[in-house]
C-alpha cells in the first residue's frame, strides 16, 4: 500500500492513459507530475479543471496529446505559455482540447463518481462553448420540460492527488480547500495519492475528507510534494514561484533549460 513514488507511477501510469491530477490551487500533486515527466510517459489525455503550472510543465515536456480543462491561466499572473504555445503553434506536439466550464467539468467527475452516464446542470446555453465541446448536450427535463445541460461522465484511468496525511493502513486525510478531489478519486479506475506525512492516527479537522484505503491503489510519501502550490498547515503557496514561472515558461529555450536542470537532474523528489 505505501509505495515508492517512481515505482507507483511506473505501475499505474501508462502511455495513452487518461490521467486526472486534481487539487484546486491547493494540494496540487507536483512531485507525481515531475516523476511522469522523468519517466517520459507520453500521449496522455490530461484532465484538470485548472491546468495550472503542473500541466503547463507536462504539456511543454511533451507528455500530453489531449487536454480536458475549464480554466487555463496562471492564477493572478496571466497566461500559461506552454499551454498557449501547444494550442497556437503545436509545440512540442499538437494538443487536442476539450473545454468546459468549471461547473460542467466538476459535474463530469460527479457523474463518474456516482456510476451514472451523465450529470445535469444549468449552463453552457447561449455560450459558444456548447458548439465547440464534446460531452455537453442539451436535454429536456422529463418532469418540467425545461431545457437543461447533460454533461457526460468522466472516468479517468488513473487519478492522482496530494494529501496532507495517510495512516499506516493507507487511509488518506486532506483538509482546507478540498476542491474536486473526492469526485476525481471516486470516478477513477486507479488512484495514486502522494502525502506530506504518514501518521499513527488522524486528528479530526475542520472540512476534512477521509478517503478509505480500499479505493486507493497506492500511497506514496512525498514531503513538499505539492510545491510550489501549498499544503494547509504544512507550507504556504509560493506565490513568487508562480510569478517567476511567467518568465521561465515564456521562452522555449528557457523552459527546456529549466526542465533539464530542475526535473531531469533530480532522481526523484519523493522519499524512498
Amino acid at each position: 500500500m505505501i509505495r515508492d513514488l517512481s515505482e507507483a507511477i511506473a505501475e499505474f501510469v501508462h502511455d495513452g492513459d487518461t490521467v486526472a491530477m486534481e487539487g484546486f490551487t491547493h494540494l496540487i500533486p507536483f512531485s507525481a507530475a515531475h516523476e511522469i515527466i522523468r519517466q517520459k510517459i507520453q500521449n496522455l489525455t490530461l484532465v484538470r479543471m485548472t491546468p495550472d503550472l503542473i500541466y503547463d510543465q507536462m504539456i511543454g515536456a511533451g507528455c500530453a496529446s489531449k487536454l480536458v480543462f475549464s480554466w487555463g491561466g496562471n492564477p493572478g499572473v496571466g497566461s500559461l505559455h506552454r499551454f498557449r504555445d501547444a494550442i497556437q503553434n503545436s509545440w512540442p506536439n499538437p494538443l487536442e482540447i476539450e473545454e468546459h466550464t468549471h461547473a460542467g467539468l466538476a459535474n463530469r467527475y460527479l457523474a463518474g463518481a456516482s456510476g451514472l452516464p451523465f450529470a445535469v446542470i444549468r449552463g453552457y446555453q447561449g455560450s459558444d462553448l456548447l458548439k465547440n465541446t464534446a460531452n455537453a448536450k442539451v436535454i429536456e427535463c422529463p418532469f418540467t420540460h425545461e431545457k437543461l445541460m447533460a454533461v457526460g461522465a468522466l472516468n479517468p484511468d488513473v487519478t492522482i492527488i496530494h494529501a496532507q496525511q495517510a495512516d499506516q493502513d493507507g487511509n488518506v486525510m486532506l483538509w482546507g480547500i478540498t476542491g474536486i478531489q473526492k469526485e476525481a478519486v471516486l470516478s477513477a479506475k486507479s488512484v495514486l495519492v502522494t502525502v506530506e506525512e504518514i501518521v499513527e492516527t488522524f486528528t479530526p479537522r475542520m472540512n476534512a475528507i477521509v478517503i478509505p484505503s480500499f479505493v486507493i491503489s497506492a500511497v506514496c510519501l512525498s514531503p513538499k510534494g505539492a510545491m510550489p502550490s501549498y499544503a494547509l498547515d504544512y507550507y504556504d503557496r509560493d506565490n513568487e514561484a508562480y510569478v517567476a514561472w511567467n518568465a521561465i515558461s515564456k521562452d522555449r529555450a528557457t523552459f527546456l533549460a529549466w526542465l533539464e536542470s530542475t526535473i531531469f537532474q533530480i532522481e526523484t523528489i519523493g522519499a524512498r
Partner: protein
Amino acid sequence: MNQKMPLETKAWTSDEMMTVSAARSLKNGDTCFVGIGIPSTAAILAKATHAPDLILIYESGTIDTNPSCLPLSIGDGELAQTALTVVSIPEIFNYWLQPGRIKMGFLGAAQIDKFANINTTIIGPSYRNPAVRLPGAGGATEIAGACHQTTIICRQSKRTFLEKIDFITSVGFGTGPGSRQSFGLTGQGPTTVITDLGILEPDQDSCELVFTQIHENTTIEQVLDATGWRLKVSDNLITTLPPTEEELRILRALNEPTAHN
C-alpha cells in the same frame, strides 16, 4: 474642480477610479461571487470601507471569507483560513451558485459587445486555431447565468469594446430582449459595466449598453473613440465622484503586498 487639473498631476489613476467605482457598486450585506484580479480587489475594498458585512464567496469553495490581504489566486490559504466554511467544488456550483443563492457576480472580460456578452476564451476568428488563447470560462459562464445581477469590470478600448466579439464565453443579454429566458438563464444579467472611463448600464427595453456615467478627467470623445460600436450616451450623464482619500489609502495599502510578490 478636478476637471481643470492637468492629467500629470491627477491624484489617482484611471484603474484606481475603476476599482473604486466597482467597490461602490456593492452594498453592505450583499453576497458576492468574486473572481480574481480587479474584481477581488474591488470586493475586498468594499468590505474594508462602506460594506463590512459583505459576504465574499470564491469558486474555490470558500464562503464568507475575510482576507486581510489580496490573494494572488482564488485558492490561497488566506481565503480558506479566514472563511466561515469551505465547501467542495461541486457543492459551490451546484448548491450555492446554480439555485440563485448569490446576489452579485463580479466578472472581468477580454472582449465585450453592446449586449454585455463577454469573451474570455480566444482572440481571432478560429476557435481551433486561435491567434491568442485566453484562459477560458472557469466559473464565469455560470456566474453570468445564475447570480441575481452581474457587474463586469473591463478597461475600455477599441480592442475590448467590439460590435462583434470573437467568442461568447458568458452570456449578457445574448441578441437582446428574451435571449436570457430562451437559454434558461435564471439571473437578471449584467446591470453595470465599469470601465476606466466610466459606467455603462443596459437600456431597460433594448438591453443595449448605454453610457451613463463618466469619470473625472475623461472626455466623451475619448469614450466614443474607445468603443467599437455607435455608443449611446445617456441624456442624464453624470460624473463619477472622485475616489475619497480613505478609498485611495485603503486601495493602495491592499495593492502594496501583491505589488512585491
